[in-house]
């Protein structure tokens, strides 16, 4: 029987992880479908004709694209359990700002860390660490970005944590040495069932990154 909620995703995607976590936070039953990005399914192309990218959330046959938009959608459709966005408009704006920051800055910087070499990689590492330090500073001494409760910004960032061992290996540096509070935060998030169930084994992610490095001619 067709499930009400289908998620078209790709297992190492830190963006797909956001949506998986959000659905699990709300206790929403969903069908997970892993896409072969070299041979995208007709359903993916039909549901996201503009970008042809995962993740795509399909709810009762209607697609929602973009992970940050999906998480907000999930919070609005299933509002009662484990609220994701804060109820106060100012806090909500801050949460949106930081997820937007992650969306604008993380991708390029992290890509340079593991998928380039030489000077480009060194520049990438500097940018990446600066971004993490900015986030760590925003976290401060709070248990989660939103304060006492796990929420939108935590969901927005935690997926990248499974890529950290890979960044460290291929970038030859220690993220924990640079950002110990952020690592402590990540481990705290991993204790949550929704997160633990939604994130892949970091060793598998390292293997995947190694494969990409070969593909980009960096290995």
């Amino acid at each position: 029987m067709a499930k009400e909620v289908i998620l078209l995703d790709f297992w190492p995607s830190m963006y797909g992880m956001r949506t998986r976590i959000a659905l699990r936070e709300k206790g929403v039953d969903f069908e997970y479908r892993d896409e072969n990005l070299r041979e995208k399914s007709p359903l993916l192309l039909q549901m996201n004709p503009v970008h042809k990218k995962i993740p795509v959330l399909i709810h009762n046959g209607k697609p929602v694209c973009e992970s940050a938009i999906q998480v907000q959608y999930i919070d609005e459709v299933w509002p009662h359990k484990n609220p994701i966005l804060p109820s106060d408009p100012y806090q909500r704006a801050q949460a949106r700002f930081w997820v937007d920051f992650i969306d604008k800055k993380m991708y390029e910087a992290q890509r340079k860390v593991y998928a380039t070499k030489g000077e480009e990689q060194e520049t990438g590492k500097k940018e990446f660490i600066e971004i993490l330090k900015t986030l760590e500073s925003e976290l401060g001494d709070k248990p989660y970005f939103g304060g006492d409760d796990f929420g939108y910004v935590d969901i927005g960032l935690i997926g990248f944590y499974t890529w950290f061992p890979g960044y460290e290996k291929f970038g030859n540096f220690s993220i924990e040495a640079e950002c110990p509070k952020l690592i402590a935060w990540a481990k705290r998030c991993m204790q949550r069932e929704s997160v633990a169930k939604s994130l892949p084994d970091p060793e598998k992610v390292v293997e995947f990154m190694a494969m990409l490095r070969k593909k980009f001619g960096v290995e």
Partner: protein
Amino acid sequence: MVERSEEVKLLGMWASPFSRRVEIALTLKGVPYEFSEQDITNKSPLLLQSNPVHKMIPVLLHNGKPISESLVILEYIDDTWQNNPILPQDPYDRAIARFWARFLDEQVYVTAMKVVGKVGEEKDAAVEATRDLLKLLEKELVGKDFLGGESLGFVDIVATLVAFWLMRTEEVVGVKVVPVEMFPEIHRWVKNLLDVDVIKKCIPPEDEHLDYIRARMESLKLKSV
């Protein structure tokens, strides 16, 4: 309605579509605000202090508390002043509106900027790419007066960057990026926008705007040589 001592200040820039869209939203809701014109070549301490992460306008200061990033600001305005809603009520419709807003800012704007900033073959390619993206907007407008449906909404406010920036640059750029034969719906939509008082009030005055765009184009060309 609760009486509160409101202090709303917008750090903005008269020619920026991102700054103007915030003004449209505030004006639509009847929120009185103080506009503070910022010199982005010589950023004020207030701007740097209010948006230390990006150091960019617009920044909305509400009772002294800063909100940055125009799309975040628009949602904040809608969450705080609930009259004349900008975003739809239904979660699915909201998701679609948010999708188009991002599309406009991340794809259309970025590609359209290349039309202004490049010359020759690169410029032609940018024109083509911009048109391909706008065809999607054209489709969205069929049977609708506004992108938001019957009345002005979130996506229309964001899309003013097409109506009053991209389309205005055509004169200066010397290429009709959005010709009426190819984009009749978009042209119809622009006319609908110009009928809305709030829009008329909040867009930059045309002549000064064109002069400004001309000057910016020249400086961009000089940079790429």
